[in-house]
């Protein structure tokens, strides 16, 4: 387990910034409710996976052999062998707090999405105004429960004119992966 190098940190932040706004710096320097500086949070690379955890926990983890350490804190995603970074569904809890653009699914669209399908226009209950095309977006159901995230195929204005069956959000990760990818979710 080691800290991320500069380039790795940059590629990871670029991916995260697709979905989040400027409040992302809360990840690094979290402030507690009373305004004081919160617990120090750090990113660590274990194998090819990146974890986000409080520093104290990371320090405890040094006593565990590297090959036996399965997971620590919240898993953000993984680096491919070519150096690209992929966000995992496990990072949803981190992303959704700072999401820049959001889409809410109608109840009839939730199941198709959780089974790995993309979002069609008819299934969208409402979504953030002024959202450009090919932009990361976090998907919620109508009760504001985060379901996953994806990438918009059209801007909001363009999507309004589309037919109801047209795809408007390409799925990147959904909560169904917790079950579907159970075997490979934490393997390095």
């Amino acid at each position: 387990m080691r800290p991320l190098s500069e380039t790795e940190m940059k590629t990871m932040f670029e991916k995260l910034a697709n979905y989040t706004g400027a409040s992302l710096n809360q990840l690094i320097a979290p402030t507690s409710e009373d305004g004081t500086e919160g617990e120090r949070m750090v990113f660590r690379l274990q194998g090819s996976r990146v974890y986000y955890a409080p520093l104290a926990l990371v320090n405890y983890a040094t006593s565990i052999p590297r090959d036996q350490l399965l997971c620590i804190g919240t898993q953000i995603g993984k680096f491919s062998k070519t150096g690209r970074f992929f966000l995992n569904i496990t990072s949803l809890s981190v992303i959704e707090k700072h999401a820049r653009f959001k889409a809410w699914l109608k109840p009839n669209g939730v199941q198709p999405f959780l089974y790995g399908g993309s979002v069609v226009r008819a299934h969208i209950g409402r979504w953030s105004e002024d959202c450009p095309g090919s932009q990361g977006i976090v998907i919620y159901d109508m009760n504001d429960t985060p379901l996953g995230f994806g990438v918009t195929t059209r801007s909001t204005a363009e999507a309004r004119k589309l037919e109801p069956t047209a795809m408007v959000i390409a799925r990147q990760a959904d909560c169904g992966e917790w079950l579907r990818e159970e075997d490979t979710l934490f393997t390095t």
Partner: protein
Amino acid sequence: MAPTKGSAKGASSGGGSSSKPLSSGSRVSKSSKNNVKRPPPKEVKNKARTERENLSKKKKRVYSEAELNLPELNTITPVGVVKPKGKKKGKTFVDDKEGMMTILAMVNAEKEGQIESKMMKARQLEEIREARKKEMEARQAEKKSKLEAAKDSIRNKKKGKGVDKSEPATNGSAKSKPKRKSVAFA
């Protein structure tokens, strides 16, 4: 061990005894030189080390390479060979808050710019589309009004002629009907 020590001592003592006559010899030569008349020796006062002049070190002149007129060597070094000295090998980790913050700020600014430009582009395209739509609508309306005008003019023409020509027109049509060829089965 012991004999060697003893011999060493002996040698040293011997050396000391031999040096004495030499020194006396030198004195003799000095005395002979004293016969030559010389100006009385002046007392030269050595300046103390702490004197200001002694304290300030004289700078040695440093020659630049051009001044030395050295023959030029082949100074080309391949790009990959020379590595900066004193630099850390391998990856540089970012684990401090400030480092992460700077990277994040850079990335955020970049993304912000990208999104802004995307939105601007989308807005411009939308404006162009709206303008085109309006133009089309205007053209359509113009066409329609033209058509209406043409229709009205025809109607008016008909109305103008209508009062006296309506009957002949109907008559004409009535008359023309029989002229039409018709096929009938017997």
